[in-house]
C-alpha cells in the first residue's frame, strides 16, 4: 500500500543470482527456452488486441473475403466514421461513460480523502471497525448487490438515469479510494502536521493545506484507478440502464451483439475507441500505475 506513488523498485542488482540470472547465455538450455517462451507469450498477449485494431481499419470487402490476411489489404476509417456519426448512439454513450466515470471519481476522491485522513490520523470510537468495514465493502462482489440495487433504483425512479448509475458506482469506488489513500496518508511524516498544529493550524487547514498537496501524486493514481474501474464497469450498467441514450459505452457495445446483425468492423472500431482512455492512462502512467496495482488494490 505504502508504495502507491513511488515507482517500483528496480530489481536488477549487480550480482547474478539464479532468480535473475537463469536466462543468461551460459545456461544454454534455459536461454533458448526462455526467449522462445517470451516470444510465444508476447504473441499471445498482443494478438487479440492487434486483431481488434486491424479489423477496425479494414474495409468490409477485405474483412469478409475468404482469404484472411495478417495485415489489412484495404485501409479505411469508414468504421470509425460510422460509429461516431450523428445517427449512431455510440458517441452519446461515450459521453455518458465520461460523465459517470468523472462524477464517480470526483466524489470518491473527495469523500475518500476526508475519511482516509480521519482513519489514519484521528482517534475516535469506531475507527477500527470502519476501516474493517471498508475492506469488506471493497472486496464484496457486485453480484451480491445488483438485484437489490436494481429494485431500489427502480422504486426511486433512478433507472435509466446517470445519477442512479453514479450512486451504484460509489459502492466500489469509495471504499477503494478511501483504502488506497489511507495507505498513502500513513506514509506521510506526522512531524509536518505536528509543526503546523503548534503554529495553531486547525485539522481542516492541515488536511487541505498540507496533507492534500503532499498527496497529489497518490490522488492522481487513485483517480486513474477509480476512473478506469467505472469506465470498465459492466454489471450495474447492464442492469440499471435499458434506454439506448442513457447507456454507458460498455453496455452500448454489448447491445450490438445481442442484435441479429454483427457489424464486426464497426464493433471493433467502437471497442478500440472505448479502450483508448484506460490504455493511454496506462501507457503514460505505467510506472505509478503498476506500483500502485501491485499494492494489491485493483479489481482485474
Amino acid at each position: 500500500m505504502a508504495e502507491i506513488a513511488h515507482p517500483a523498485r528496480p530489481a536488477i542488482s549487480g550480482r547474478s543470482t539464479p532468480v535473475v540470472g537463469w536466462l543468461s547465455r551460459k545456461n544454454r538450455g534455459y536461454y533458448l527456452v526462455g526467449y522462445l517462451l517470451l516470444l510465444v507469450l508476447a504473441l499471445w498477449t498482443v494478438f487479440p488486441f492487434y486483431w481488434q485494431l486491424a479489423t477496425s481499419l479494414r474495409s468490409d470487402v477485405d474483412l469478409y473475403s475468404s482469404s484472411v490476411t495478417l495485415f489489412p489489404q484495404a485501409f479505411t476509417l469508414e468504421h470509425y466514421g460510422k460509429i461516431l456519426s450523428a445517427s449512431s448512439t455510440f458517441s452519446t454513450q461515450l459521453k455518458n461513460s465520461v460523465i459517470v466515470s468523472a462524477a464517480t471519481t470526483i466524489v470518491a476522491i473527495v469523500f475518500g480523502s476526508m475519511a482516509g485522513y480521519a482513519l489514519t490520523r484521528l482517534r475516535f470510537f469506531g475507527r477500527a471497525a470502519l476501516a474493517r468495514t471498508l475492506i469488506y465493502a471493497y472486496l464484496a462482489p457486485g453480484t451480491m448487490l445488483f438485484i437489490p440495487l436494481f429494485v431500489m433504483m427502480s422504486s426511486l425512479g433512478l433507472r435509466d438515469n446517470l445519477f442512479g448509475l453514479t450512486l451504484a458506482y460509489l459502492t466500489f469506488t469509495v471504499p477503494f479510494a478511501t483504502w488506497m489513500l489511507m495507505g498513502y496518508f500513513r506514509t506521510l511524516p506526522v512531524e509536518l502536521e505536528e509543526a503546523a498544529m503548534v503554529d495553531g493550524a486547525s485539522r481542516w487547514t492541515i488536511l487541505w493545506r498540507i496533507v492534500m498537496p503532499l498527496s497529489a501524486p497518490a490522488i492522481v493514481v487513485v483517480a486513474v484507478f477509480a476512473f478506469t474501474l467505472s469506465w470498465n464497469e459492466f454489471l450495474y450498467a447492464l442492469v440499471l440502464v435499458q434506454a439506448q441514450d442513457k447507456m454507458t459505452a460498455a453496455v452500448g457495445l454489448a447491445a450490438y451483439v445481442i442484435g441479429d446483425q454483427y457489424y464486426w468492423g464497426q464493433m471493433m472500431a467502437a471497442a478500440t475507441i472505448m479502450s483508448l482512455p484506460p490504455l493511454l492512462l496506462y501507457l503514460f502512467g505505467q510506472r505509478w500505475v503498476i506500483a500502485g496495482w501491485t499494492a494489491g488494490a485493483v479489481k482485474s
Partner: protein
Amino acid sequence: MSVLQTSERARVAAVGRALPRLGRDWRLGYTLTLPVVVIILALIAYPFAYSVWLSLQDIKVGGQGTFVGLGNYAKILFDRNSQISGDFYNSVFVSFVYTGGALLGKFIIGMVSALILNAHIRARSFWRALLFLPWAIPGIVSAFSWKWIYNDVNGVLNTLLQNLGIIQSPILFLADPNLALWSVLLAVIWQGTPFWTMTFLAGLQAIPDELYEAAQIDGASTAQSFWYITLPNMATVIVVTAMLSAIWTSNAIQYVYILTNGGPANVTETFPILAYNYGVRSYDLGIGSTIPLIFLPVFAVLIYFLTRRMLRQGV
C-alpha cells in the same frame, strides 16, 4: 506523536470531556467520515439487507411479495425436481470449473511471465509493458475481440486452421457444448494473467538475494533454487493473489455474457449469469437474490482472510 498529543490534550479537556468514550478527535473524526459512512449504509449495507429480505419472499418485479421464509433456499437446494434446482447445481459446477481453470491458467502463465520478466533480459521494460497490456483493456472490449476471433464465419482462428489444412469445416468454438467453456476460459485467462504477473514480479523482487547466493554456494541448480527458495518464499503472495482473483473471476459477468450468454445448453452458465437470468430477465427477484446469497459463505471466508491480511499490512 508526542507534540501532537500534548497540544491536543488541552483541546480534549475543553471539548471532549462530555463524551470521553468517543475518543480524542470524535467531532472532526465523525464529520470527516460521515459521507463515507452514509454511502456504506445507504448503498451497501441497506441493499445487502434488502437482498436478504427479498430472498425470503416469493416476489416478482412490480408484484407484491409473499413471505416464504427459507422457501427459496429450500427450493433451490433441495427440490431436485424443480428447474431452478437443476440450473443451480449446474451453475455451481460451471462456476467451479470456470474459476478453478482460470486460476490454474493464470497461475502458470503468470508465474512463467514473472520469472522471465524478473531475469536479466534485453529491453526488459518493453516486454513488461507488453505483457501487462491486457490489463489496460476493458474486459468488455477483450470479450468482443475474442468473440470475433472465435467466429465461425471469417473468424481468424477458423480461417487459419482451415488454411493450414488442420480442419475441414469451421469449429464452433462458442456454440459447441464441449468447447464453449474452454473457449471462454481462454479469454478470461488472457485478460486476467497480468494481475498475477505483476504481483508475482513484486513478490520475486522481495526475496532476498542472500538466499539464492547461499543456495548457489551449496551447489543448488537453477531448478532446485526455484523449487526450494522461490516457491516457498512466494507462498503468501500466491495464496493472496489466488484469493483475490477467485473473488473477481467468479463474479465477473461480462465474458460469459458476451461470448456465450450462458449457452450452449447452460454449459457456461456461471452463478452470476444464472442470478441475472432469473432476477432481471425473468423478473423473479426472490430466486434471483437467493442465488448469490447461497454463494456468500464461500466469499465471506475469502474476504475474512484477505481483510485480516490487509489490516495487518496496513495499520
